[in-house]
């Protein structure tokens, strides 16, 4: 396990943006009425936000960042780092972070790069940005995390279509002597194809055959440019790996579980998250869920849940937070951090 601490870093603000367009899983035609009810009560997802054509993950992140920068009253010249974590970039080439650096009016003296990660991306992003920023006294950074996963799924695939939703988020971090964030990050590439879009990149370069739909089971049809998700394997992965990862971090860093105010999980599946919560023996009021209203927004679920569910407390108090992301890669990790009176604008709808 990669257990480490990043000193002298503080989160100063978090914001999030979602598309206005709402899809209701009660209307999802590939499931029967009983199946829809069972899906909503078990997986926990009722509504999903869907980006219209032309609205990208970077657009959502840009809106979140503009609002955050304005509310922080930061001088944009002071932002020295921009990291964009997404699996749905604007282009294959170039890196979308360069476009965002320009659109946000940041200085040319700014590190900007993309990171291809999904469910674990927010925890990773905090560790990457924090590691860079700790060597820049006085420095400020933006971590932009978001995806438009609805563009990657087949609407004829009941194993993915009712799960995914779109969002973009922005997190402001600053050099701050004395503060510290702790991490435990893990990877298992052996299971890389449990969540995969097999075609369209460079291992299986695009060809017309990849557009042909295959019916894998009743209600599960997709082509090779769509996301495939092995639900049972991912469910077992979550049950097996997440709680030990968190327990190890807390134990290694001598953090008392009882002292943590909130455990903010990647919003994958209510049944899985409740199983993890029970394994950790954490009270339900300490585990906020946003997936009923916003679905699985991939890398964005953790900051989106912070904005949607913990907005008031983040703005006006001290919080001890345990964040945990897990999924595609397979990649998973947890982070422990403390916040105090951070900037947290209301959720933006575009």
């Amino acid at each position: 396990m990669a257990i480490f601490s990043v000193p002298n870093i503080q989160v100063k603000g978090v914001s999030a943006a979602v598309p206005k367009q709402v899809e209701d899983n009660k209307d999802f035609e590939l499931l029967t009425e009983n199946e829809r009810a069972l899906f909503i009560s078990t997986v926990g997802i009722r509504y999903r936000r869907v980006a219209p054509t032309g609205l990208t993950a970077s657009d959502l992140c840009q809106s979140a960042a503009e609002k955050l920068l304005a509310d922080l009253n930061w001088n944009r010249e002071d932002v020295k780092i921009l990291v964009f974590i997404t699996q749905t970039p604007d282009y294959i080439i170039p890196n979308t972070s360069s476009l965002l650096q320009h659109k946000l009016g940041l200085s040319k003296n700014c590190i900007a790069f993309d990171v291809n990660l999904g469910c674990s991306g927010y925890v990773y992003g905090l560790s990457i940005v924090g590691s860079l920023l700790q060597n820049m006294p006085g420095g400020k950074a933006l971590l932009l995390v978001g995806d438009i996963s609805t563009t990657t799924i087949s609407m004829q695939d009941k194993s993915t279509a009712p799960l995914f939703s779109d969002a973009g988020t922005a997190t402001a971090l600053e050099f701050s002597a004395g503060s510290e964030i702790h991490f435990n990050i893990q990877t298992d590439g052996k299971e890389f194809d449990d969540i995969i879009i097999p075609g369209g990149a460079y291992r299986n370069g695009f060809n017309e055959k990849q557009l042909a739909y295959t019916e894998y089971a009743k209600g599960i049809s997709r082509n090779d440019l769509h996301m495939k998700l092995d639900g049972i394997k991912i469910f077992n992965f979550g049950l097996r790996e997440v709680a030990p990862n968190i327990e190890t971090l807390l134990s290694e860093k001598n953090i008392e579980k009882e002292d943590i105010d909130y455990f903010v999980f990647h919003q994958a599946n209510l049944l899985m998250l409740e199983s993890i919560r029970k394994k950790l023996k954490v009270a339900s009021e300490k585990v906020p869920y946003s997936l009923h209203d916003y679905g699985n927004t991939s890398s964005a679920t953790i900051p989106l849940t912070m904005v949607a569910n913990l907005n008031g407390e983040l703005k006006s108090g001290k919080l001890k937070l345990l964040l945990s992301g897990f999924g595609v890669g397979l990649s998973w990790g947890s982070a422990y951090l403390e916040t105090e009176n951070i900037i947290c604008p209301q959720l933006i709808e575009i």
Partner: protein
Amino acid sequence: MIPTFSKLHVNMELEDFVKRFADCFHQTPLSGFKPETEFAKLEEWGSMMTLIVIGMIDADFGKTITSDDLKNATTIASLFEIVKSK
């Protein structure tokens, strides 16, 4: 014939497993669950029920079962045997 203690114990375990299995379901009546029940043929069985049963076995028995295990187990009793063998 009076069952031996171990045989009785195993039967009780199976009975408990069938009950816990049945508790995962919402629409199928309790009378529909017996050790010999071919669960994949139940009208209520589907992908959601698969996750619920996997979650139950993980939480109550501390065992992980795969999609292959569920395909290989035709009845609740045979699923119980697979769980016990892990």
